[in-house]
């Protein structure tokens, strides 16, 4: 391990969670359920029907069992700015609504905690810094309604002046069923996509000074097909929010070019 490895190891906290029991339990339910259903369906007699029903119940349990599993997500992005610039931008809570997807405005903040609203005022959240190492690591925890997630960014210099590599770790503690996991993934409403979009917006702000948009541009009549496609492509969401999408970051690189 290098000397720059953070003292409180975020990786370790990810690995410390024992997911074996729940996974084995769920697998057992699934195997028992499937065997019951198949054998019952094959027999289709007085013993077969209860086996089929029982197997079906076990399958149902395997599908809906809420597992308090921790969903660990790792993302990475290289930003053409120095680690110190990125760190100080990220450390300032007032900047969070600029790049954190779905966050509207900061309600109140002190040096270590922040309360905010998001999703057009429909959700409240709060976050607290857990660990900070300027220019290297920032770790925080967020509570949104009943959910809780832990996050950390780790900054490393990219080779030959290509800026800074940001490693973004997310630890989602929201209990999920198989069904809700599939649904969230299909609709793009996943923690992973949230992290990806937030990281992208940060990069855009820090490099280009603004987040590119087409919300509010003219168009011809969309018709039903066009409206459905816009929803699928997740466009037009920001039109109503009018979230700030640009900032003046003191930027030597921008000024010089």
């Amino acid at each position, binding site marked *: 391990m290098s000397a720059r490895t953070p003292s409180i190891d975020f990786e370790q906290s990810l690995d410390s969670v024992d997911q074996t029991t729940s996974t084995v339990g769920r697998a057992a339910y699934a195997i028992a359920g499937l065997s019951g259903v198949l054998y019952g369906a094959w027999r289709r007699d007085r013993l077969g029907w209860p086996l089929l029903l029982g197997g079906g119940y076990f399958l149902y349990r395997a599908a809906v069992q809420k597992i308090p599993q921790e969903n660990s997500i790792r993302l990475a992005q290289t930003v*053409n700015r120095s680690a110190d610039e990125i760190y100080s931008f990220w450390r300032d809570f007032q900047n969070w609504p600029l790049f954190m997807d779905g966050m509207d405005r900061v309600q109140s903040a002190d040096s270590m905690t922040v309360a905010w609203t998001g999703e057009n005022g429909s959700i409240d959240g709060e976050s607290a810094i857990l660990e900070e190492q300027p220019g290297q690591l920032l770790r925080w925890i967020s509570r949104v309604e009943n959910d809780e997630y832990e996050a950390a960014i780790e900054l490393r210099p990219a080779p030959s002046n290509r800026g800074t590599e940001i490693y973004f770790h997310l630890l989602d503690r929201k209990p999920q069923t198989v069904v809700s996991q599939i649904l969230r993934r299909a609709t793009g409403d996943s923690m992973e996509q949230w992290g*990806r979009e937030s990281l992208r917006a940060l990069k855009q702000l820090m490099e280009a000074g603004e987040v*590119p948009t087409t919300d509010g541009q*003219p*168009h*011809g*009549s*969309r018709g039903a097909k066009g409206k459905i*496609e816009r929803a699928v*492509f997740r466009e037009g969401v920001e039109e109503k929010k009018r979230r700030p999408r640009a900032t003046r970051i003191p930027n030597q690189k921008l000024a010089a070019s």
Partner: protein
Amino acid sequence: MKALCWQGKENVRVEKVDDPQILNPRDAIVKITLTAICGSDLHLYDGYIPTLEPGDILGHEFMGEIVETGQEVNNLKVGDRVVVPFTIACGHCYFCENQLWSLCDNSNPNAWIAEKMYGFSPSGLFGYSHMMGGYAGGQAQYARVPFADIGPIKVPDTLRDDQVLFLSDIFPTGYMAAENCTIRPGYVVAVFGCGPVGLFAIRSAFMLGADRVIAIDRIPERLQKARESKADIFNYDDDDDVVEVLKQMTGGRGPDACIDCVGMEAHGHDFLARYDSAKQTLKLSFDRPKVLRQAIQACRKGGTVSIPGVYGGLLDKIPFGAAFGKGLTFKMGQTHMHSYLQPLLRRIEQGEIDPSFVITHRLSLDDAPSAYRTFRDKRDQCVKVVLDPWKTNQVAAQS
């Protein structure tokens, strides 16, 4: 304002839409004085580019006058006459700093769609599907230009609109295609497809020192323009064995470089061409890569295949064994526009080329729906259409 909107396959119409507004600090609004239909717009018209939405404003070749600027745009002022490059670039990411402008990291608002399809997202483009950003295009009376402090180039009043308009795409695209051939003395370059990009590729190849250019097409007026551009021409309707004919025309060596200026909607007579058409009709594929196969097969050993023609998805039956066996170099992609604007404007100013030579049709925006069809079907000797968005419909005016 008036704008040309896509409403489905082979269905475009001029609609009354809202005027564009400044949405970001680095935006500018351009009042368009001249715009054009590009060959790649025909891929949209024919419905072969995914993620287009009904109501989208098309067009990515346009120029005009600045009428409004965002607070961060300091190098342009109201009244400036500009040509707008079709690729949108932020100017500050790794790719922009390395002149790979069409690969800009920060200009595509829908980067996630492209990431799912391509692994990474290229830059945003005007009027070219939502995967490429969903930006409203320039076949309209006004357009919003993002990152206007980086993209648009001011043009001198001594040059007419139709002389500088094609700096927006096809001239730099043809030029980069030729540049990608790394032409050396004695080089023979084969240009597949003599549409506007092909014609600029021919002239650019000569500018860059090619000894000979062989132009391949089947449309008489396009071959004629190629001949006027000093290329040797070959009509593949006369002999479909393009590879053998090119060998004959080059002393058995094959061309040193092949440029595919056709892309995803190639025509052909053989079995594979029919197979491509069937797959495209059944929506099993976006692309008919007939020309790409020929270019790979015809290119000399160790030569370069340069691809400015647009491809969209997964290509079938590509002779990669031939490409490997012959040690070919491939160069492709959307044009890194911002690198070519100044140098090519200088060539126009110095009289080395007058890009207006490709124009065959000068119409109004109202004529655009019929012009798309004429251009697509290559009727009426149509090679290039330019549209004046402020002129009234000529047909209506005559009647």
